[in-house]
């Protein structure tokens, strides 16, 4: 927990923040609208005498007394266990049916399957991951949820190739094709500080050099997402960590290097703005449009989310 002391200057009520980080989180499930409706899923839980409570978004239920995987609606792929803040970025990206969407760091697929449901399982959802073992979990979650609009690729998202999806193009292997996507979700690997309520050991191996190293990976993935999204398209960047090195600093880098801008968005959860200064660094002032969700705000995990528009210039 000492790691969290470094954020004392950023957090509004640091004692409440610390106390929240020490409490466990309830099980939360998301209703899979590809296979059922929110009403029918609620009825199936009620019929099985499983207590559930609504969360911040329609179709998210907290199960105070139950594990997500041990009931009939789960066996039918009607429910997916997903922490409630982890449902934020797909809602912010807000893909529409029929669009082309890239999920840059997709496994194990909580957000991928949520994107597929928002797209009404139509259009093309390219889901990328660099780890074959995790892709197996992604595939199994997507199939359990009945997703059919997903195309799964195994590659480093920083070098994501559009070539497999562009018919008739051959020769160059560098994936240098026209931007393919209307929207991209960049929910990057991170130091996961915000998941401490779910995984109390998560900070045991925390090092500043890991944070700085992974920040370089995050910058590369966000840049590739902007490059492969058409002008006028939307990119959402998110992490489950508090470290500005992995959040605002990554946005600041993308703003300097790629044709994009941060845009305002609304979420029905308490949060604070992105920080424009951290230690010796200051960031582009528009990073304040990003949102920081601390565990004590809404009694959830911690989260960071930013919405970018690709400008093309």
């Amino acid at each position, binding site marked *: 927990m000492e790691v969290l002391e470094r954020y004392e200057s950023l957090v509004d009520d640091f004692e409440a923040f610390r106390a929240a980080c020490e409490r466990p989180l309830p099980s939360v499930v998301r209703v899979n609208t590809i296979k059922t409706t929110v009403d*029918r899923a609620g009825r199936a839980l009620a019929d099985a005498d499983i207590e559930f409570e609504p969360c911040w978004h329609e179709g998210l239920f907290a199960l105070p007394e139950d594990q997500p995987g041990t009931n009939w609606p789960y*066996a039918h*792929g009607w429910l997916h266990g997903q922490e409630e803040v982890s449902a934020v970025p797909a809602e912010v990206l807000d893909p529409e049916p029929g669009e082309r969407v890239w999920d840059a760091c997709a496994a194990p697929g909580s957000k991928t399957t949520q994107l597929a449901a928002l797209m009404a399982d139509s259009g093309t959802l390219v889901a990328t991951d660099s780890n074959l073992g995790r892709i197996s979990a992604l595939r199994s979650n997507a199939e359990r949820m009945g997703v*059919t609009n997903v195309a799964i690729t195994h590659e480093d998202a920083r070098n994501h190739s559009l070539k497999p999806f562009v018919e008739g193009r051959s020769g160059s292997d560098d994936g240098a094709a026209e931007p393919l996507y209307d929207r991209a979700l960049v929910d990057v690997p991170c130091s996961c500080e915000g998941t401490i309520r779910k995984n109390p050991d998560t900070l045991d191996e925390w090092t500043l050099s890991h944070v700085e190293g992974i920040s370089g990976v995050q910058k590369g993935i966000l840049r590739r997402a902007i490059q492969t999204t058409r002008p006028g398209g939307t990119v959402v960047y998110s992490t489950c960590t508090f470290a500005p090195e992995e959040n605002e600093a990554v946005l600041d880098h993308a703003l300097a290097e790629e044709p994009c801008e941060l845009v305002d968005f609304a979420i029905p959860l308490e949060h604070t703005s992105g920080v424009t200064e951290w230690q010796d660094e200051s960031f582009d002032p528009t990073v304040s449009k990003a949102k920081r969700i601390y565990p004590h705000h809404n009694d959830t995990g911690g989260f960071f989310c930013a919405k970018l528009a690709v400008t093309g210039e």
Partner: protein
Amino acid sequence: MSEDTETSTDSGAAPENDGSRFDRLPATDDEREVPSRPTRAEVLDWWAERFDVPPAVFDGHTFWEKGSGKIWAYAGDAPSPIAIEGLGMAFLRTRREHWKPTLEAVQRFGDHADRNVVALSEGEAATFLAGEDQELDWDGDWGYLIVVHELAGEPEPLGVALYVHGELRSQVPKGRRRDFRD
């Protein structure tokens, strides 16, 4: 196998399925190049004949083969062939004489089925989902059946069973089994 072999017409040998990539099924027999590969028309006919699922249910999906006889249903756009890790949902196995739908296909499309559908009580459904076989009186066809049970007030497809010799054999894959028996 290289792409050249697949498209070759003068080597004498018939093209074979390449298990490392997804190939879109030919629409009909006339377009078939890989002799072992089923056509889209055959797949639609099979769902219609076996389960009375109308072909229009699959209007939004293309069908692909990866791995010998393993057919996938995909709602998005992709050129054929495409060498990636996944494309939609694995939904039908056609390698053996009797074609077999996947549990995932039945859960997703099985509510359109009107034939070879067996409705189980909650206790029987729990036995089925646990992966156990059970004796069952069934007047219909032998072979692969769609198992449904009541959930939230309506019959809901749960998976695939093989019915032979008075026994309903659960085909639920290990990873999807759950034991909800009392």
